[in-house]
């Protein structure tokens, strides 16, 4: 999870490294720790460390981690030759390693030779049938070939064994959303919220899915989840604030005929609108008229 402080630190370090201020190794470590995908930068700065024997020897054992990181970044940038060189270096150091075998499979993937990659992964799985990363790679491979239904099937099979793997649940949810299968996606997000109840972004995504599904009951539920997102972020999440306003407007429209209780909820969206106005005033004053017009067009019940 990337926290607010960590994100600021990452951006600061990235700026510093890009302008030649040093600290490349710290930057690469942070990228690895936060698991963000900055392949081009990792490739550039990682290679400059690896090509400098003095800097490289300073890393000690960490050198091999860097080789792996750079290899994956190179594959992501389609620099297959660099990836191959890195993997060869790793192979010389760790001839029997499973992890290097996995990298080789990924190299085949990056080249687009899916059949060979499949063979490589299958032979690795024979040695160790419960290797999670390789099973995930197979899902990714199906996805890369455009075989989304195959990926879903594979992922479901994987999740039957490894139910606690939240990354896989998230991937499945995102695939379902991309296919507009919102009911299934909602189930995955429920699972994620159960797994990690304090991550506001899962609440937010679940609320989004429910809002998209529509219907009075779903809308009310979605509003609750937007509210819990606000609770967990201290009102710093703009999307959740907008979500509250949209949900209130939609609920008001649906329940126009039957006048229901809902006295307390009117307070909620006025508060959200007020917070939005305050945020816009602080951060981008030029867009404030746009916001007020949008909020007026929503015809929020008051």
């Amino acid at each position, binding site marked *: 999870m990337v926290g607010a402080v960590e*994100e600021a630190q990452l951006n600061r370090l990235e700026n510093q490294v890009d302008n030649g201020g040093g600290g490349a190794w710290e930057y690469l470590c942070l990228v690895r720790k936060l698991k963000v995908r900055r392949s081009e930068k990792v*490739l550039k700065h990682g290679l400059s460390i690896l090509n400098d024997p003095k800097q490289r020897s300073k890393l000690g054992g960490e050198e091999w981690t860097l080789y792996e990181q750079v290899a994956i970044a190179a594959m992501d940038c389609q620099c297959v030759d660099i990836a191959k060189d890195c993997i060869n270096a790793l192979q010389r150091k760790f001839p029997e390693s499973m992890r290097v075998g996995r990298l080789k499979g990924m190299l085949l993937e990056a080249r687009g030779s899916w059949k060979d990659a499949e063979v490589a992964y299958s032979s690795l799985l024979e040695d160790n049938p419960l290797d999670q990363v390789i099973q995930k790679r197979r899902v990714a491979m199906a996805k890369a070939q455009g075989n989304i239904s195959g990926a879903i099937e594979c992922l479901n099979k994987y999740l039957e064994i490894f139910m606690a793997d939240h*990354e896989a649940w998230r991937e499945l949810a995102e695939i379902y959303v991309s296919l507009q299968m919102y009911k299934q996606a909602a189930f995955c997000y429920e699972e994620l919220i159960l797994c990690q109840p304090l991550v506001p972004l899962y609440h937010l995504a679940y609320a989004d899915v429910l809002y998209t599904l529509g219907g009075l009951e779903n809308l009310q539920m979605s509003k609750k989840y937007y509210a819990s997102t606000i609770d967990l972020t201290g009102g710093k999440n703009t999307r959740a604030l907008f979500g509250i306003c949209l949900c209130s407007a939609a609920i008001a429209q649906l329940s126009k005929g039957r006048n229901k209780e809902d006295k307390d909820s009117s307070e909620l969206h006025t508060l959200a609108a007020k917070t939005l106005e305050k945020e816009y005033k602080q951060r981008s004053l030029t867009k404030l008229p746009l916001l007020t017009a949008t909020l007026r067009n929503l015809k929020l019940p008051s």
Partner: protein
Amino acid sequence: MSFGFMIGVFGVLILAHAAYSTIQYRSLLKILEEEFSGLPMNVVGELLLGLVFCMWAALTVPGKFLSILPYSEENRIVSLPDNLDFMVFNHRGKVFPSKMDLKLKR
């Protein structure tokens, strides 16, 4: 050694002294053949002082307190990690080959 740690040591010494005085007081009572009803005031004061010192040291020496609120600046989650285990190389970046011609020197 830090200032807080010294205070902590001092607090422990005071507590030990209070314990010693209590034992002495009880043996004195035994000689005088009186009932033990309570501690003398100065020992109680000593105990309280030692407690305050020890508590202060225990709260400051081990380190700073971290926030447990989910929305505090340190804990607030702003983005999820990119799902690197499911990374796909067959993306649109493939169409735009990078202009860098970097090489791994051997």
